[in-house]
């Protein structure tokens, strides 16, 4: 019997109070390597239920221009997966890690180069509760799933508006943490409105998955979630843009409270 998922518990705690859980996304090292940790602490102190940390990659095919540009800035500043995990481990050991469970979002190649066994062990030691890997569909999940599960780290499935119930069921088997529904047929980035089929697809996903279903991509304002039965909302581009314009994480989170 594996340990209960910290991610699922955090999301269920939020939904129990009648609101979706809030999952802000910030690329590691943004806006710079020092201030990132300040903003991470601010997200934690101002209502984030789970925090998603981006692992920068040179070729992020699922990301829109805002996240891609931020990631490339971080790479130029010298951010590496090794740096991220070492910093997280140091904070976990010092007891200064965020209280919200952490999720790493990154592409397959940097994780593969780090080594899956080392990745799973170091992520767990750094307090990482889950991982999102956008270029890892069901067919390629096996080695990642096995390594992460052994360390108690949840591999979060990503599904889309074009994912059939049959494929959702494949992902739903052994699903832990939460499922991530991509709300648009496209890349990350803010949209004024979400496509009509989101509501129906959310309903199907919540029926099939035994874990909470989070909605991400295209979300910038809490009003967009009205009437949508999402268990959690993930937002990144709007937060990055807010910080780039001179704001801070605390100010951004205020609008979601």
């Amino acid at each position, binding site marked *: 019997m594996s340990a209960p998922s910290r991610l699922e518990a955090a999301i269920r705690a939020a939904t129990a109070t009648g609101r979706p859980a809030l999952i802000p996304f910030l690329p590691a090292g943004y806006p710079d390597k020092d201030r990132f940790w300040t903003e991470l602490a601010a997200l934690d102190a101002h209502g984030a239920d789970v925090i998603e940390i981006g692992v920068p990659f040179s070729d992020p095919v699922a990301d829109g221009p805002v996240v891609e*540009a931020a990631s490339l800035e971080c790479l130029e500043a010298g951010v590496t997966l090794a740096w991220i995990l070492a910093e997280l481990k140091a904070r976990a050991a010092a007891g200064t890690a965020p209280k919200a469970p952490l999720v790493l979002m990154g592409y397959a190649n940097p994780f593969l180069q780090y080594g899956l066994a080392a990745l799973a062990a170091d992520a767990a030691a750094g307090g990482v509760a889950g991982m999102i890997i956008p270029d890892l569909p069901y067919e*390629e999940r096996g080695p990642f799933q096995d390594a992460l599960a052994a360390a108690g780290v949840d591999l979060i499935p*990503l599904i889309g508006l074009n994912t059939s119930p049959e494929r959702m069921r494949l992902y739903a088997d052994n699903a832990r943490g939460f499922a991530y529904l991509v709300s648009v047929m496209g890349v990350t980035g803010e949209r004024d409105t979400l496509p009509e089929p989101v509501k129906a697809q959310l309903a199907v996903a919540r029926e099939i998955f035994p874990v909470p279903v989070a909605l991400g991509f295209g979300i910038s304002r809490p009003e967009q979630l009205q009437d949508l039965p999402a268990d959690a909302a993930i937002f990144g581009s709007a937060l990055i843009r807010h910080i780039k314009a001179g704001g801070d994480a605390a100010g951004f989170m205020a609008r979601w409270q």
Partner: protein
Amino acid sequence: MTTSAPLRAGWFGDFGGQFVPELLMPPLHELEEAYATIAASPAFKEELAGLMTDYVGRPTSLYRCRTLSKELGINLWLKREDLAHTGAHKINNTLGQALLTKHMGKTVLMAETGAGQHGVATATAAAMLGLECLVFMGATDVVRQAHNVRRMELLGATVHPVQSGTQTLKDAINAALRYWIAEQATTHYCIGSVVGPHPFPIIVRDFQRCIGDEMRAQFRAKIGRLPDYVVACCGGGSNAMGTFYPYIEDEGVQLVGVEAAGTGDPGCYHSATLTQGTNGVLHGTRTKLLQTEDGQILPSHSVAPGLDYPGVGPEHAWLQASGRARYECVNDVQALAAFHTLCRAEGIIPALESSHALAWVLENSASLPKGCHVAVTLSGRGDKDLGIIQEIQETQRKQA
């Protein structure tokens, strides 16, 4: 074991796969199904064969170099893909995929291109078959390859400059994948080499194998046996794969892929992924890559724009790992020398990509058995590279 048969669908040994966002799995499954049914049907095959003959001009000739054979003491043969319509082997694949697109009921043919050759071939096939055409191209390449941009526009294609990343081919591929996610209902992504997620490496190889199939038959007819060496340049690897594939079971035929070693200067990122790269995942496939220890993709360089890619087709990685093919490097200077040699000796202006394959033969001819038969795939003609050649000559004049 030397067979390249996938051990499971989409894999060649440890290489291949489908490392793409879940949103791309439905169109990949749709493509796999269409390829297995539509492209395998006699009607499709007949229509494509007719176009290959009447529109592309196949079979392309197999020419024995008169002067160079004598000078080198070997029999040097050229498989003349430069004589195919649009001047390169690229048309074999784009026409196949364009026809498949039409039969699938999609209306837009989308591609990315580095040097512009694949873009021109895609635009050509789209125009002929009445499909809309959209081509993503790195903003740097749009400037470097202005002539090919103009050709694509004349053929009715829309060229979209990509401003992100290094503004070259790999970023154009990222942009194309993103576009395909959003427009998959109407659009087919016509990948130009044996790269990308399954089933693309197989589809592109199969549409390009006409090169090797024809070459085998032509050798049987001309010398009564197969050649001793088959040599092809290898960037993404489509012309090399199309050339090698029909020879894989012929163990007496040595297969040599030639990669671009770039300038050889410190900091030159070359394009020699098989000889210099390491295993990793890029653009949907597990293969050999130019990358940092952290798994970030390095920029690449070659004087030949078509070889300038930090990855390579997964089946090549397998052919190398299994020992069936070997991969060697040629640098910019050697390729340029081979370019000029072929121009003067045989009256053929080769593409700079093909000049790499030719350069390997020129550099190694002394160690090859006297009188052996060496076939080089001349993947394209060099008219497109005259701007690069002129720039190099002007730089050399200034330095002299």
